[in-house]
C-alpha cells in the first residue's frame, strides 16, 4: 500500500499530503465499486451455485436433513435411460436449433442487408417472433400442430392425409416439432445480430474485390465472413447458451413428453429437482448442464482467441 499514494497523487511535493488523502479516498471508492458488486455477486450467484454443487452430492427431499452420498447421483445418470434420452435430445437440439438458426439468421441478414424499398417491413416481420412471449408462441404453435390443426389441414388439402400425424403427441416427431417454433423465433434474433455486424463491413473492400473480378460467393467468403468474425463469436456463444438453456417452448408444449421422448436436460432437471422432491439428483443434473455450457463456450472462445492471436 505504501507505493499506492505516490502513484495516484498528481500534485507537486507541496500538495503531497492533500494528494495522499484524496488518493486514498479514491482508492477506497474504487475498491468499493469493485468489492460491493463482487460481494453481492458472490452472495446471490456464486454461493447458491456452489451450494447446488454440494446438494448434488447428497440425497435430499427439501425437508429432512440431506444425506451425503458422494458421487452416487452422478453414477445414477449412467444407468438412467431418461437421462441418456435427454442428453441425446440436447445434442440434437444444439446441432439442429443452433446450426439452422445461425445459417438461417445469416442468410436472412445477407438478403435484407441491402437498402431497398420496404426493407424495414421485411426485417420487422422476421424479428416479430422475438418480441412475442414464448408462452404466447407456444399457444399459437399448439394450435398449428393440433390433430385437426393447420399442418394436418394443409397436408389433407394437398392430398397427403396419410402423412398427417399428432405432431406433438408422437415420440418420433415431438422433438422436431418443437425445434420448428424455437427456430422460428431464434432466426429473427440472429438475423438482427448479423445485420448489425454487416454494417461494419467496409463497402470499399467489396468494390475493390469486384474490380479484381471476385464472384459474389468469393466476395462473401473472403471479404464479408472475415470481417464478421467478431460478431460470429458473439452469435455462436449466444446460440450455444440459448440452445442449452432452451426450456420454455418444450415445457409449454410437451413438458418433455410423450414418455420423455422430447425431454431436454433442462426440462428433466426441472421436473426431477423442482417439481419432484429429488433435490440431490436434480442438482447433479444442473451441474452437468452447467459444465456442458461452460465447457462448450470455453473451448470455442479459446480457439477463436488463439486464431486471432495467430492472425
Amino acid at each position, binding site marked *: 500500500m505504501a507505493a499506492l499514494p505516490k502513484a495516484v497523487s498528481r500534485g507537486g511535493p507541496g500538495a503531497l499530503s492533500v494528494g495522499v488523502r484524496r488518493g486514498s479516498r479514491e482508492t477506497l471508492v474504487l475498491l468499493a465499486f469493485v468489492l460491493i458488486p463482487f460481494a453481492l455477486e458472490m452472495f446471490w450467484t456464486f454461493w447458491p451455485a456452489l451450494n447446488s454443487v454440494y446438494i448434488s452430492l447428497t440425497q435430499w427431499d427439501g*425437508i429432512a436433513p440431506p444425506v451425503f452420498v458422494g458421487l452416487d447421483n452422478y453414477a445414477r445418470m449412467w444407468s438412467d435411460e431418461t437421462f441418456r434420452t435427454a442428453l441425446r435430445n440436447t445434442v440434437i437440439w444444439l446441432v439442429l436449433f443452433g446450426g439452422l438458426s445461425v445459417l438461417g439468421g445469416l442468410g436472412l441478414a445477407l438478403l435484407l442487408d441491402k437498402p431497398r424499398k420496404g426493407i424495414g417491413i421485411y426485417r420487422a416481420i422476421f424479428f416479430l417472433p422475438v418480441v412475442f412471449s414464448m408462452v404466447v408462441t407456444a399457444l399459437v404453435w399448439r394450435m398449428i400442430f393440433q390433430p385437426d390443426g393447420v399442418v394436418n389441414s394443409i397436408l389433407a388439402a394437398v392430398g397427403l392425409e396419410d402423412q398427417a400425424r399428432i405432431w406433438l403427441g408422437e415420440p418420433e416427431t415431438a422433438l422436431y416439432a418443437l425445434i420448428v417454433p424455437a427456430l422460428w423465433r431464434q432466426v429473427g434474433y440472429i438475423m438482427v445480430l448479423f445485420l448489425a455486424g454487416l454494417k461494419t463491413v467496409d463497402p470499399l473492400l467489396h468494390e475493390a474485390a469486384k474490380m479484381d473480378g471476385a464472384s459474389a460467393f468469393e466476395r462473401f467468403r473472403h471479404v464479408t465472413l472475415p470481417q464478421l468474425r467478431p460478431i460470429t463469436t458473439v452469435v455462436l456463444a449466444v446460440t450455444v447458451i440459448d440452445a442449452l438453456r432452451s426450456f420454455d417452448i418444450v415445457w409449454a408444449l410437451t413438458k418433455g413428453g410423450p414418455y420423455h421422448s422430447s425431454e431436454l436436460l433442462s426440462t428433466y432437471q426441472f421436473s426431477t429437482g423442482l417439481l419432484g422432491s429429488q433435490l440431490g439428483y436434480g442438482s447433479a443434473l444442473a451441474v452437468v448442464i452447467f459444465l456442458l455450457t461452460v465447457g462448450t463456450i470455453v473451448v470455442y472462445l479459446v480457439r477463436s482467441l488463439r486464431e486471432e492471436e495467430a492472425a
Partner: protein
Amino acid sequence: MSHPMSRRGFLAGVGAFGVASALAGCATSTPSPAAGSGTKKSAALQLKSRETSDGGRKAMQALLDEFAKANPQYKPTLNTMEPAAFQQQIRADLTLATPPDMLTWFAGEIASNFAKQGLLLDATSAFPADGYSKQFADLSTDASGKKIFVPTNYYWWGMFYRTSQFEKWDVSEPKTWDEFIALCKTLKGKGVSPIALPLADSAWLTASWFDYLNLRINGATFHRALLAGQESYTDPRVAKVLDTWREVLPYLDPAGKGLAFQEGSAKWQQGKDAMFLAGTFLGDATPADVKADVNFFQFPIIDANVPVAEEAPLDGFIASARTANPEGALAFMKYVATPQAQELYLKTSGSTLIPANSNAKSPVSTPLLEKGRAMVASAADVTQFFNRDSNDDQLNALTTALVRFIDKPDEAGDILKKWQDDSAKARGN
C-alpha cells in the same frame, strides 16, 4: 426478577412483533395494526390457499370473515397462490421460521410425511368427536395417532357422460366390465369415439385409469402396498391391470395424444367423445345450460369378489407446527370442521363438492351430487388419487409408463420393468 417482564424485554417484544407483522404485511399486502401491548400474543393469522378460482377465493375469504366475527381477537388474512407454485413451495413454507399459520392441503401420503418430520401442528383438540366417518378420521391421523389434518370437503371420480347424448345413441349405463366393453363397441359402431383421454398437458389423467383398474382387479390393500413400495410393478397382478386396460385402448379417442385438457373436455361436452373418466371438476367447467345434463356412472366392476373402493380425494386444512399463534390456528381448524363452516364454503364456492362432515348438508343439492355421495358412502374403501396416495415423483414414473403403454402395448413387460426401476430410484433405494 419480580416483574413478569423487564422494560428491555418488553421493548424487544414490541420490536419483534413489529417486524413480524411487517413481514406478514409484505406477504399479504394488508398491514397488521401496530401492537397495542407487549403482553398480548400475536393476533395475526395467515391462511395460505391454493384455491385460485373465483368462487374458491371468495369462499376462503368468507370463512375467514365468519371466523374473525366469532373470534375478534384474531386478525386472519388470506394469501392465495396458484396451485402448481403452491405445491412446489409448501416444503419451504412449512420449514420457514415464520410460516403461514394454516394451509390448504389434502389427505394422503404427503401430509403423513410432513407429520413424520414434525412439520404439522397437532390438531387433535380441534378435531370433532362426532361428524366424521371412520375412513375420513383415519385419513386425518398420522402414524402416531395424532390428528394432523381437518378435512372439509371431497369430490369423487366416475365415468362422466351426457344424459341427452346417451339417449340419442340409445345406450345405457354399464355395471360390469363386459357391459362396458360392449358399450364401447356399440358406440364405435355408431361412429362415436367412446372414450376421451386428453394427454397433451394432462398425462396425469392416466393415473385415474390405473387406480381404478388396480382397485377393481386387485383391491385397495394391494393398491396401497404397491404405492408405498412394498410391492413391485413387475408383479403379475400389475401386468394383469395393463392386460385389462388393453381391451379399452382401441376405444380411446386417437386424437387424445395431441389434445390439452381444455380441448379434450370441450370435445366430450360437444358429444364427440362419449365418456370421460374424471373427477367432478369436469362437470364444473361446463356452461350452466349443460350442467344439468352431466351425468356419471361408477367405474365398472371387474371382479365381483373384490371389495369396491372409490376415489374420493379429500381436501381440508393443515396448520404449521412453527406457527407463532397455535391457539389461533387451532381455533380456525376447529371452526372449519363445523357443519356451518363447510356449508358456508360450499355455498360460496359453487363447486360440485360434498362436505366432509356428515352433519353438514349440501347447500345446493343436485341429483348428480346425491348420486356421487351415495356411491362414496356405499364404498367399502376410499382412496385419494395416485399422487395423493404416493407423491409426484411416483406420478412421473406412472405417466411415463402408461403413456408409452397406450402407444406401444406390446412392450408391456419392458414398460413395467422400467416403471419399477424409476419408482425405486425416485424413492432413493
